């Protein structure tokens, strides 16, 4: 699946997007953030306070308990500040 990062999540991870293939036990968005945080210093920094990070699956807002099975594109970003 494809991951996309925005704003300071993007800056901390150091990339705008990437393809990943997480292990089967990574079932939810929350699991995915925990798994990502273990991938290195920049990910640990980006996801150190996972509670404030928002996620979208295939361009719909989801909560941390949303299942990632079947997702084509998962985005992580800070709370939005548009308008």
């Amino acid at each position: 699946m494809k991951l996309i990062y925005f704003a300071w999540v993007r800056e901390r991870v150091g990339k705008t997007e990437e393809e990943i293939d997480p292990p089967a036990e990574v079932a939810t968005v929350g699991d995915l953030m925990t798994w990502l945080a273990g991938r290195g210093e920049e990910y640990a920094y980006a996801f150190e306070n996972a509670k404030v990070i928002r996620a979208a699956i295939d361009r719909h807002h989801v909560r941390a308990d949303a299942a990632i099975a079947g997702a084509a594109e998962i985005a992580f970003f800070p709370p939005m500040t548009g308008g």
Partner: protein
Amino acid sequence: MTTTIRLQREAFDVAAEVAALTRGRTDIGAVVTFTGICRADEDGAPIAALTLEHYPRMAEAEIARHIEEARARWPLLGMTVVHRYGRLVPGEPIVLVVTASSHRQAAFTAAEFLMDFLKTRAPFWKQVETFAGTSWVEAKAADDVAADRWSAPPRREVR
């Protein structure tokens, strides 16, 4: 109903957007426009510019979902949302919402609804450029409070 959603780098022309929504129609009695403008200060500190980052396809989809919700909730005849991205300096317009209805209350209410959702749910992020460096604007609790009031059934019955 006429609806327009546009995300663009360029400035917008409020009069042209209103004309596009109302031209040739005689059923519209009320048009409300909201224009959000880049101020020279953010939380009391002077700024040099704002840079807006967005999630392109999701931003359009999310705005479309809220336009659809507004259409279901109030008797509207047209809605336009234009949101800019990229670098903007103080005084430049950021966002435009136009709503049209036969009566004023629906137009006012839908414009406020759309703005509250653009502030809290549309995937845009503002980075502030000050004379000392850059930082990301933090989401404001007051904007969440404003958006939460729409979860309850419509509060105002007057039209």
